[in-house]
């Protein structure tokens, strides 16, 4: 391009700005130079992952230009990650959902008709009523994932009469939550900002998603010289920053932890005062761990016994500023719960409970509640039969995979309608062929989302929710060592014919004869919730600041009083759990040597990247550019054994299915494991960048169905795959 042509461009640009203020955004004009620009900064809350960081939306002439961190939030630590920054793409993506859609072709064919909201609501309500009439209200599933407005969607399902509200934890951290709940009566946070010694199993906190723990961990390992011991079959970013990384044999974390306990108990390194004052079951534990010596664990884990012994000593020396970090991440194995329990027990006996640098029960801020008309509790039992299958698990969350098995088997009753709120079970659940079979047997599927997810792709009606930068949501309290209350308010008016969840729910409720239960606005909801906050005009404060946190900072030790009752059956921290025994489970964690992949096969392991939120953001153009396709990580030795070179197309086959991806031959993974990133090979053609074979393969097609037997949480590392060159 020569100078003359460039000048021509510039002149056109200026003219455009003068003539049409609505398109005054010039891609190359510095904003501050443009006359008459209205610059607004609106504090709100991110929704690109579940961490809910506080952000400030910079808006000029009705366009969001930039999302900056809100320094007032102690939770988001003054940062916005790559996904948070790429939130603009969610709003301005030309392929986002813009208006309600009705399916016109076969399911998954991608033929849609844009309809009015009335038509979409009428259609969905008539289908839901039909199912209710034929099969009863329990014949409907209401699937949702964590979001501020999830409560409205769940309420609609329950008011409709279905017991089958199916939430995300059993695809996430159900086993962690249950293990810590049964040990401490609550799920604590880990004070990584102040810990001196941190052990972490596979949680890949520096990469799998960016949250306060990420910031604290990197700060601790660099500025504050904390020691990080990291266990993972894969060389992740966290492994690369750890002081010691062990590529342990998969599924042997529990052996490692039991050996740590063994050393700490036999060498009398546990906190005797704490154990006698606050715990039950030390004698049984001491007896139980006797056989689990470091030498025994070395065989199981491939971690040298001398290192295990040294780590146990260093860990107990650093206590109470020493933690075995609990999660997050999904369950990995069928006995995942027991591995998490062992961590909890190890943490308990070194006395790091409710101490600075240890584990801290989450502080909360009490919010008010809006009084609304209560509905009758659903009559039918849950289709996943939590009482029978997972009697100790959180019943209200359900057990996703057991639910799918039962629906496919038609027990205990037929299920014919599926409503989904901003979740993508097509990708989130293993063994996608089963999810597709479940979809086939539905008389009706309705999806609420901001984008055409793979699940929306198979729906009958798609309700477009306004994006998080275009809507109000209920205010939310986020518990933690430093709790916060956050506000989500629109930075701009909706660009398209979209609505917030509450209005979508109300439209359906009206047609289902359930309006009386949703007779409020989000403003009324928020007023009721905020009214007791100890600040003047709390909602005005939140509108102005986006976040509020108690000014007095973290507190430690409130539960360390002789009369404190823990939320367990005994009122103490339960090293030995009589409750587990009562329900037929091992009261102390029992290790079973895991099966290893047979010759010619590999264990498929999962993991995350810092710029993707599960399968949710792989189609975001600003993020996809960092990794436009997924590949199969395979060790050079393993690869050469089967004649595979870097970049070769390979077929990856399990009992659940088969996909094609390119090989990424790398030292960064054990020779007996392979790994591939989640969220590619999508079915939805509206997810252009992540769809089809050009983007790689869909891991959900090949992960086999398995779950943790106590919590019901999906066990995602139980799959062995065969890898062949195409």
């Amino acid at each position, binding site marked *: 391009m020569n100078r003359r042509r*460039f000048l021509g461009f510039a002149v056109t640009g200026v003219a455009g700005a003068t003539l049409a203020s609505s398109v005054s955004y010039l891609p190359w004009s510095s904003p501050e130079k443009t006359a008459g620009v209205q610059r607004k900064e609106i504090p709100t809350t991110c929704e690109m992952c579940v961490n809910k960081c506080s952000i400030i939306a910079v808006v000029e002439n009705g366009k969001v230009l930039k999302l900056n961190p809100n320094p007032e939030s102690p939770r988001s*630590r003054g940062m916005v990650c*790559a996904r948070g*920054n790429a939130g603009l793409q969610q709003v301005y993506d030309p392929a986002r959902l813009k208006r309600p859609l009705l399916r016109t072709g076969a399911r998954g064919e991608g033929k849609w008709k844009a309809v009015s909201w009335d038509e979409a609501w009428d259609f969905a309500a008539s289908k839901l009523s039909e199912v209710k009439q034929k099969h009863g209200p329990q014949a409907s599933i209401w699937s949702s994932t964590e979001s501020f407005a999830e409560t409205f969607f769940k309420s609609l399902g329950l008011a409709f009469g279905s017991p089958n509200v199916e939430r995300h934890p059993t695809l996430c951290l159900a086993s962690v939550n249950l293990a810590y709940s049964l040990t401490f009566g609550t799920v604590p946070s880990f004070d990584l900002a102040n810990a001196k010694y941190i052990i972490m199993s596979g949680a890949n906190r520096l990469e799998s998603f*960016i949250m306060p723990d990420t910031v604290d961990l990197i700060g601790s390992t660099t500025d504050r010289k904390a020691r990080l011991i990291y266990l993972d079959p894969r060389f992740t970013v966290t492994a690369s920053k750890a002081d010691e990384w062990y590529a342990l044999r998969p599924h042997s974390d529990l052996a490692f932890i039991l050996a740590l306990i063994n050393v700490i108990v036999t060498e009398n390194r546990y906190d005797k005062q704490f154990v006698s004052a606050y715990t039950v079951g030390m004698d049984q534990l001491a007896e139980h761990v006797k056989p689990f010596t470091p030498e025994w664990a070395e065989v199981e884990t491939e971690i040298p016994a001398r290192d295990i012994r040294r780590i146990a000593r260093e860990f107990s020396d650093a206590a109470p500023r020493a933690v075995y970090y609990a999660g997050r991440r999904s369950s990995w194995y069928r006995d995942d719960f027991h591995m998490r329990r062992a961590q909890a027990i190890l943490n308990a006996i070194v006395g790091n409970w409710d101490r600075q640098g240890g584990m801290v029960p989450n502080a909360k801020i009490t919010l008010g509640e809006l009084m609304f008309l209560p509905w009758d509790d659903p009559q039918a039992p849950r289709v996943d039969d939590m009482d029978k299958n997972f009697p100790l698990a959180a019943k209200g969350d359900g057990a996703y995979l057991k639910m799918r098995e039962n629906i496919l088997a038609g027990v205990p009753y037929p299920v014919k309608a599926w409503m989904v709120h901003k979740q993508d079970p097509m990708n989130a659940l293993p063994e996608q062929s089963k999810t597709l079979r479940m979809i086939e047997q539905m008389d009706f599927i309705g999806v609420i989302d901001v984008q055409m997810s793979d699940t929306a792709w198979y729906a009958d009606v798609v309700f477009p929710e306004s994006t998080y930068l275009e809507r109000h949501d209920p205010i939310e309290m986020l518990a933690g060592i430093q709790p916060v209350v956050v506000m989500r308010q629109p930075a701009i008016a909706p660009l398209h014919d979209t609505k917030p969840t509450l209005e979508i729910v109300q439209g359906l409720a009206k047609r289902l004869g359930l309006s009386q239960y949703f007779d409020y606005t989000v403003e009324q909801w928020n007023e009721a919730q905020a009214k007791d906050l100890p600040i003047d005009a709390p909602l005005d404060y939140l509108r102005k600041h986006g976040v509020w946190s108690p000014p007095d900072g973290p507190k430690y030790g409130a539960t360390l009083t002789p009369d404190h009752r823990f939320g367990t059956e005994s009122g103490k921290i339960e090293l030995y759990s009589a409750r587990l025994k009562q329900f037929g489970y091992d009261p102390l964690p029992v290790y079973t040597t895991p099966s290893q992949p047979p010759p010619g096969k590999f264990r498929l392991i999962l993991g995350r990247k810092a710029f993707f939120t599960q399968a949710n953001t792989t189609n975001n*153009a600003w993020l996809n*550019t960092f990794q436009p396709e997924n590949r199969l990580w395979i060790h050079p030795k393993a690869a050469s054994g089967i004649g595979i070179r870097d970049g070769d197309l390979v077929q990856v086959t399990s009992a659940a299915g088969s996909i094609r991806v390119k090989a990424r031959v790398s*030292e960064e993974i054990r020779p007996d494991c392979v790994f591939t990133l989640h969220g590619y090979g999508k079915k939805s053609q509206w997810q252009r960048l992540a769809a089809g074979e050009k983007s790689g393969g869909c891991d959900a097609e090949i992960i086999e169905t398995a779950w943790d037997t106590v919590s019901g949480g999906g066990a995602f590392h139980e799959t062995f795959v065969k890898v062949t060159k195409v």
Partner: protein
Amino acid sequence: MAERKKRYALVIDSRKCIACRACAVACRAENQVPLAYTRNWLNQELRGELPHLLAISEPEQCHHCAQPACVRVCPTGASYQRADGIVAINDRECVGCRYCMIACPFDARFFREDRGVVEKCDLCKARVDRGEMPACVETCPSKVRVFGDINDPESNVAQLLTTRQFRVKKSEAGTAPQIYYLL
């Protein structure tokens, strides 16, 4: 009292970099950089064999050299240096000759085919002039980059450079680069 001359610089602690790419996306949004280009990037390297592996992740962008070769070779004066040290490009003067791209020892510049001009990091000078941090500095979860005035002995950057060891890249090019990598 005469006002002390400012000299903006970046101090980068690569050990803290978790390769999350927040800086790249923040820059893209702030400076409206199309997908085909980027003003900052990561140099990544993996060394060793399992289990003895070393991963390096090092952010880089325009070094805002004190003796910028790009400014020297620019025939129209489009590339210029501000009094505070920021090296920037005046769009209206740029003829797209790309001499500066050849002169830059760091390959920090790119030619915008769509606009016919050269672009690069300008440390978000509009933000800096408002008293804000450059977007890449502000957004970073692990605070890899520290931005400030090295002529101010109280500044974070000056403090870091007096207390920590550091290196600059390609000092032999004679351009006096102003990104200081902590060792």
